[in-house]
């Protein structure tokens, strides 16, 4: 008797894996091991509605007890997987329990990086529901909030805290916010929107220490804050794979089918490093919600004997104030940009590589104004299309016509 398909990590990828194993017709045992005490829930609301909603928040469940009953899956909660014995195909848990697996999916996600400077332990981070609940209450009782890091999570929390009326300062060491993966023109719009909302934006500013009543900047200035929140990136959770002798390369090294070097072990989601066939087999690791879903779908299909490559176009969204930003593809692979203005406040930057191929699209605008065109761009990227710049730039030329042309 084995425990069948075993999944480590009850986040988006782990939850999705259960659902897709059943949807694919698998009838054997499914066991998920998750170190969190809650059933799988959705993380994106944690930096948004979770903080701002007037009503007492509730986790946005991805699976509930009744769904687990109908899916006939076992979820072991509040316990960490400690080690893998590959020879006997056994997963050892911290509480002494061992599970034998037919196939194992590692979906351990990522954990926030902590500040290492003096007083760094005073900075809060945001990854799980307990963090979100804590920040919600702390921000509501704080006159001043300091946020370290102008990345997506920091900026979303800044917008949420500002909405609640706190004085908010964002401190970013790089010369601008959203340095990683977001074109300057879009980062500029985000920056200006935060300033218009009253957020004090300190870019190109180093830190020297965190203190109980605020942060000390590298130039000696002190910014008073009742709470300091760090959004300085996340580290993939690879310890389990490393311990088992599996390769790690900024994430658990997988092939295009999301399989590790061990034919019975797969990875999906924020912890997974894979070569992307659509982008010259460049190895990447994505921290994005849809990636976690799609990779879980592909990995489980392959756990059941398939050999499908994961080729979905990377896609990410972020909501800040009244603006939504969406990024499809790999903007960083572009050497040339083309701008399409959709309305006064909404535009898309297309990224083309040296051969003219569309490799990325970054859009920003109020509400969902850019969603449709980013979606069409994503479909063009998936087809390795190389539309003419003039057509991309001209908002009167429907992107759908380029797709069909």
């Amino acid at each position, binding site marked *: 008797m084995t425990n069948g398909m075993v999944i480590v990590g009850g986040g988006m990828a782990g939850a999705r894996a259960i659902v897709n194993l059943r949807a694919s017709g698998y009838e054997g045992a499914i066991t998920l091991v998750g170190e969190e005490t809650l059933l799988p829930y959705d993380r994106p609301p944690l930096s948004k509605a979770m903080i701002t909603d007037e009503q007492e928040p509730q986790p946005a469940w991805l699976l509930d007890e009744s769904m687990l009953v109908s899916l006939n899956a076992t979820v072991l909660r509040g316990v960490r997987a400690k080690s893998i014995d590959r020879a006997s195909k056994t997963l050892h848990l911290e509480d002494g329990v061992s599970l034998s697996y037919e196939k194992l999916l590692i979906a351990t996600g990522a954990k926030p990086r902590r500040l290492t400077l003096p007083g760094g332990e005073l900075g809060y981070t945001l990854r799980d529901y307990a963090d979100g609940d804590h920040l919600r209450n702390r921000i509501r009782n704080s006159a001043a909030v300091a946020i370290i890091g102008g990345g997506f999570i920091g900026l979303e929390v800044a917008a949420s805290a500002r909405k609640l009326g706190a004085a908010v300062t964002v401190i970013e060491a790089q010369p601008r916010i959203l340095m990683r993966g977001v074109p300057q023109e879009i980062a500029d719009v985000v920056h200006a929107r935060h300033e218009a909302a009253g957020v004090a934006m300190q870019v190109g500013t180093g830190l020297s220490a965190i203190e109980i009543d605020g942060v000390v900047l590298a130039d000696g200035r002190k910014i008073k804050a009742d709470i300091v929140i760090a959004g300085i990136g996340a580290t993939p959770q690879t310890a389990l794979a490393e311990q088992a002798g599996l390769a790690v390369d900024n994430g658990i090294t997988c092939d295009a089918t999301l399989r590790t070097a061990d034919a019975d072990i797969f990875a999906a989601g924020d912890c997974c490093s894979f070569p992307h066939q659509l982008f010259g087999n460049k190895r990447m690791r994505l921290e994005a919600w849809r990636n976690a879903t799609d990779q879980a779908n592909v990995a489980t299909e392959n756990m059941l004997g398939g050999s499908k490559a994961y080729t979905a176009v990377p896609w990410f969204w972020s909501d800040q104030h009244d603006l939504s930003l969406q990024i499809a593809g790999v903007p960083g692979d572009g050497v040339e940009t083309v701008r399409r203005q959709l309305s006064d406040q909404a535009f898309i930057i297309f990224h083309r590589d040296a051969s003219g191929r569309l490799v990325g699209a970054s859009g920003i605008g109020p509400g*969902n104004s850019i*969603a*449709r065109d980013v979606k069409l761009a994503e479909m063009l990227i998936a087809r390795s299309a190389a539309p003419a710049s003039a057509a991309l730039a001209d908002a009167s030329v429907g992107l759908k016509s380029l797709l069909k042309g």
Partner: protein
Amino acid sequence: MAQWIEACGKDDIDEEDVMRFDHGGKTYAIYRSPDDKFYATDGLCTHEKIHLADGLVMDNIIECPKHNGRFDYRTGEAKGAPVCINLKTYPVKVDGGKVLIDVG
């Protein structure tokens, strides 16, 4: 009881596209399919109440602009995560150049 309301003109919507229509405190989405038929559903996604009219219509599918939830707009059927609740649909008829929906 049937209650036919004029939603828009036939030519207000392109083929394979969608339009928002608000009436009586509710919001609807009106679709024109690639084979030139008209359909109507609730206007808000069943996942997080986002206006579907900002989404993309491809063939018989409307894709939500927020997290790409997909529905068959002819039947309202939710086509998988993150949407699991079907959309309500409404009868539609075209009369002259006008598109009417039954909100009754």
